[in-house]
C-alpha cells in the first residue's frame, strides 16, 4: 500500500487548515479502502464462509460450500430424531435417528405424511402440537414398525424456509427413560411390598442369581442371599430330591409355575425348617422371561403342631380303644364273676333244703340264717349280673298290661323282711286302675329296689309312703306316677345328680349297715328307661328325707286281668317217683341235688361228665335228665344231642338244662339242642320239684 505522506506544518492558531481535514479524510478513506481491499481479497481467496447480500425482502446470506457441514453432522448424528415438515405435514427431511425410532427406512420416510406414524389415540395431541403458535412440546407415542409403539418427547417449532412455512420437529426417545422411571417407581413400590411381606420372596435373574430378597427371605436364609445363586443359598430338599432348588429355579425360568411345594431347608445339623414354596416366571411385556420369583412360607411350626395333634389324636384314639376294651373286659369280668359266685350258692341252698327235709325243725334258726344270707348273696350277685346284662344290652323285656297296684304289693312282699327289721311304718296309696305296659318281674324289681333303698337310708322307725297317681307329662300326655317317699337321711345336693350312677352310695355308715354294691338305683334307672319311663330323685337335703318319682306311660291296651307275676309252687312230699339223672361236674352240687330229689321219692343217678352220663343213661334209662350246660369237654348241648340220638336213647326222655345264664339266646340254644326246659342256677328247688311233677 502506498502511503501518502506530507510533512507536517506547524499549525497556526488561526483558521483551521482545510488541508488537515482533507488529510484526515483521505486517511479515513484510505483506511476504508484498505479494509475493503482486504475483504475483497479474503473473499477472492475463499477465506470466508458466507456473504451477506441485500435483497428486496431483506438480507440474504449466501453460504459457501462446506460451511454447513457441521450442522449436517450435528443433525445427522445426534441422539434425537429430527424432522422437517412442510405446510401439509409431509416429511421433507428426516435424520437417520428418526428413521430408527419409527423403524422405517429413510426413503420410505421422506415424502410421507407425518401423521402416518402417529397412533390413532395420539393424533389429536400431535395436531395440536403442530398447530401451536411459537411451537410446543408434548409426550406422545409414535408407531414403530408394524405393531410396536415408542414413547417420545416431541418439540415442535414453526418456521419459514425461504418462502415456505415449515415445521421443525425434534423427537426424543423416552423408552429407556420411561422404562427406567416406571421401573424405578415400580421398584420402589415393589421393594416396599417385598420387604414388608411375611413370606420370603426372592427374585432371581435369568441366571438364577438372587437380585431381590425380602426381609423374611433373609431370615430364612440365615445369611445375605443377594447376588448369589438361589440354589447355593437355599439348600432345599423334598422327599424325592435331595437338592431340589436348581430344578425349581430352572422350571420357573422356563415359564412353569410351582405351587405350594413342601420343602425342607437344612440350616445346620439340627435345625430344619419346613417351607411351602411357590415359584413362577417374571415375564416382560413381550412375553420373554426376565427372571423368576420364588416365595415361601415357613410352616415348620404348623407342621410340628399338626404332627403333635396327630400324635395326640392317635393317643386319644388308642386311649379310647383301650378304655372301651377295658370296659368290655370289665363287663365280661362282672358276668364271669357273677356266674362264678353263683355256682357255690346252689349247693348251699340245696343242702339247706335237704336239711329241712331230713331233720325237720332241728337247727331251724341256723338254717334260716344260712338261707337268708345265701339269698342275700344271690340277690347281690343277681344285681351285679343285671347291671352287666343291662350295659351289654342283653335284657329283654316281656311287657304286658299290668296293674301298678299288683306290682307294688308284690314288691312290698319282697321288701317286707327289711321293712320289718328296720321297724318302718309303711303307708300305701296306690289305687286300682293304673295300668302300665311292663315286664312284671322287672318292674317289680324296680319298685322293690326303691323300697329297700328307702328302708336302708331311713333310721329305725321311720316312715315310708308309696303313692300312685296319674299326672301329665311334659307334652306327652297322661302319665302314671309312682312316688316313694321316706323320712330318712336324705340326699346331699352335691350327690343328687349322681344318685343313679353305678357304685355310688350315700353316706358310708347307712349304706354299709345294710350292705349292697350301690347298684340298686342304677338298675332302677336302666330298667325304667327300658320301659320308656323316667325316674327322678328329690330331697330337701341331709336329714330331710328323700322322694323318688317314677313316671311311666299308661298302657294303651285294654286291661286284662293281669296275674301276679310269680307263682310259687309248694313242695309236695308225696310225688310220683321218677328216674332222674343228674349230670353236673360240680360234685357237691350234683350229689346234693340228687339227694334232695331222692328225699322227695325219686330214683336218682349222678354223673359228672358227658361220657359217663351216656353210659349211665344206657343202663339207667332215666325219664328225666338234669344236665349242666357248662360240662367240660362235652358240653350239655352236645350231651343232650347224643342222648336224643344215640341208639340207647330213651324215648320220651325229658331233658332239663341247668345253666348259669338266663339269656334268651341260651334258652333258644337249649331248645334247639333238644332240651324241653331250662333252669337257671341256683336252681329253685321247689320250682324244680314242681316241674318234675308236671312232666308227663
Amino acid at each position, binding site marked *: 500500500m502506498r502511503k501518502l505522506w506530507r510533512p507536517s506544518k506547524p499549525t497556526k492558531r488561526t483558521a483551521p487548515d482545510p488541508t488537515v481535514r482533507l488529510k484526515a479524510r483521505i486517511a479515513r478513506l484510505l483506511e476504508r479502502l484498505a479494509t475493503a481491499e482486504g475483504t475483497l481479497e479474503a473473499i477472492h481467496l475463499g477465506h470466508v464462509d458466507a456473504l451477506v447480500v441485500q435483497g428486496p425482502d431483506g*438480507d440474504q446470506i449466501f453460504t459457501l460450500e462446506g*460451511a454447513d457441514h457441521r450442522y449436517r453432522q450435528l443433525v445427522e448424528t445426534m441422539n434425537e430424531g429430527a424432522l422437517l415438515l412442510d405446510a401439509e405435514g409431509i416429511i421433507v427431511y428426516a435424520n437417520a435417528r428418526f428413521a430408527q425410532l419409527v423403524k422405517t427406512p429413510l426413503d420410505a420416510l421422506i415424502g410421507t405424511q407425518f401423521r402416518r406414524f402417529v397412533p390413532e389415540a395420539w393424533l389429536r395431541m400431535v395436531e395440536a402440537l403442530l398447530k401451536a403458535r411459537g411451537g410446543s412440546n408434548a409426550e406422545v407415542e409414535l408407531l414403530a414398525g408394524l405393531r410396536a409403539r415408542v414413547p417420545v418427547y416431541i418439540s415442535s417449532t414453526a418456521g419459514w424456509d425461504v418462502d415456505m412455512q415449515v415445521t421443525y420437529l425434534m423427537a426424543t426417545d423416552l423408552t429407556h427413560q420411561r422404562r427406567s422411571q416406571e421401573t424405578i417407581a415400580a421398584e420402589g413400590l415393589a421393594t416396599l411390598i417385598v420387604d414388608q411381606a411375611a413370606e420370603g420372596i426372592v427374585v432371581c435373574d435369568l441366571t438364577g442369581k438372587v437380585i431381590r430378597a425380602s426381609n423374611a427371605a433373609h431370615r430364612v436364609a440365615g445369611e445375605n442371599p443377594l447376588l448369589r445363586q438361589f440354589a447355593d443359598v437355599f439348600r432345599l430338599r423334598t422327599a424325592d430330591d435331595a437338592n431340589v432348588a436348581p430344578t425349581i429355579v430352572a422350571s420357573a425360568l422356563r415359564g412353569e409355575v410351582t405351587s405350594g411345594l413342601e420343602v425342607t431347608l437344612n440350616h445346620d445339623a439340627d435345625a430344619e425348617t419346613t417351607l411351602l414354596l411357590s415359584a413362577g416366571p417374571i415375564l416382560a411385556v413381550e412375553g420373554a422371561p426376565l427372571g423368576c420369583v420364588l416365595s415361601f412360607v415357613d410352616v415348620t411350626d404348623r407342621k410340628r403342631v399338626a404332627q403333635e395333634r396327630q400324635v395326640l389324636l392317635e393317643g386319644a384314639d388308642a386311649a379310647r380303644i383301650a378304655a372301651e376294651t377295658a370296659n368290655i373286659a370289665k363287663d365280661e369280668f362282672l358276668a364271669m364273676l357273677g356266674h362264678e359266685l353263683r355256682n357255690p350258692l346252689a349247693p348251699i341252698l340245696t343242702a339247706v333244703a335237704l336239711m329241712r327235709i331230713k331233720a325237720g325243725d332241728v337247727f331251724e334258726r341256723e338254717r334260716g340264717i344260712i338261707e337268708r344270707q345265701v339269698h342275700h348273696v344271690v340277690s347281690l350277685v343277681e344285681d351285679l349280673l343285671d347291671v352287666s346284662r343291662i350295659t351289654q344290652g342283653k335284657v329283654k323285656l316281656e311287657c304286658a298290661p299290668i296293674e301298678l297296684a299288683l306290682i307294688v304289693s308284690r314288691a312290698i312282699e319282697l321288701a317286707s323282711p327289711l321293712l320289718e327289721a328296720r321297724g318302718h311304718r309303711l303307708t300305701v296309696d296306690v289305687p286300682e286302675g293304673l295300668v302300665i305296659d311292663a315286664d312284671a318281674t322287672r318292674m317289680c324289681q324296680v319298685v322293690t329296689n326303691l323300697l329297700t333303698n328307702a328302708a336302708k337310708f331311713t333310721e329305725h322307725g321311720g316312715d315310708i309312703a308309696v303313692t300312685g297317681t296319674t299326672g301329665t307329662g311334659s307334652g306327652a300326655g297322661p302319665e302314671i306316677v309312682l312316688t316313694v317317699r321316706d323320712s330318712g337321711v336324705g340326699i346331699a345336693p352335691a350327690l343328687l345328680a349322681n344318685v343313679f350312677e353305678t357304685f355310688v352310695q350315700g353316706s358310708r355308715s347307712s349304706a354299709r349297715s345294710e350292705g349292697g354294691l350301690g347298684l340298686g338305683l342304677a338298675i332302677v334307672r336302666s330298667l325304667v328307661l327300658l320301659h320308656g319311663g323316667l325316674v327322678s330323685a328329690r330331697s330337701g337335703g341331709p336329714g330331710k328325707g328323700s322322694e323318688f318319682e317314677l313316671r311311666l306311660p299308661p298302657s294303651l291296651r285294654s286291661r286284662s286281668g293281669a296275674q301276679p307275676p310269680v307263682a310259687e309252687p309248694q313242695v309236695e312230699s308225696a310225688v310220683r317217683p321218677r328216674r332222674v339223672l343228674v349230670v353236673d361236674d360240680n360234685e357237691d352240687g350234683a350229689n346234693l341235688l340228687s339227694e334232695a330229689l331222692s328225699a322227695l321219692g325219686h330214683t336218682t343217678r349222678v354223673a359228672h361228665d358227658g361220657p359217663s352220663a351216656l353210659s349211665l343213661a344206657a343202663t339207667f334209662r332215666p325219664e328225666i335228665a338234669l344236665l349242666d350246660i357248662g360240662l367240660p369237654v362235652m358240653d350239655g348241648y352236645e350231651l343232650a344231642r347224643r342222648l336224643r340220638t344215640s341208639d340207647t336213647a330213651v324215648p320220651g326222655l325229658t331233658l332239663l338244662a341247668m345253666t348259669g345264664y338266663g339269656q334268651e339266646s341260651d334258652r333258644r340254644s337249649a331248645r334247639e339242642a333238644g332240651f324241653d326246659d331250662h333252669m337257671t342256677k341256683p336252681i329253685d328247688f321247689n320250682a324244680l320239684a314242681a316241674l318234675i311233677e308236671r312232666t308227663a
Partner: protein
Amino acid sequence: MASRKQVTRGQKTVLRLYVAGISARSTRAIQNARRICDENEGDCELAVIDIFQQPGLAKDDQIVAVPTLVKKLPPPSRRLTGNLSDLDVIRVGLDLKAR
C-alpha cells in the same frame, strides 16, 4: 499514512465478531477473538454474532462477508475479514498492541 498504535491503559476495548454458523473458520475466529480479548489489559468485551441466528445485526456494521472481526472501541473502528487464524495478523489489522 501511519496508524498510531496506541492503546490507552484502562480504556475499554470492544470487539465484535460476525460468523456464519459453526464452520471450522467460525470456530477458529471465535477462539482467536477470545484470546485477543483476553490478552488485553483492562476491559475487553467480545460479542459473537452468528448471522444465521441474527441476520439483522449484520446490517449494523454493514457486514459483507463473514467471518469479520470489528473493533468498535477504542476508535478508530477497524475491521478484518477472512482468515482470522493468525493472532498477529489480527492484532495488526485491528491496531491492537501485542502483549
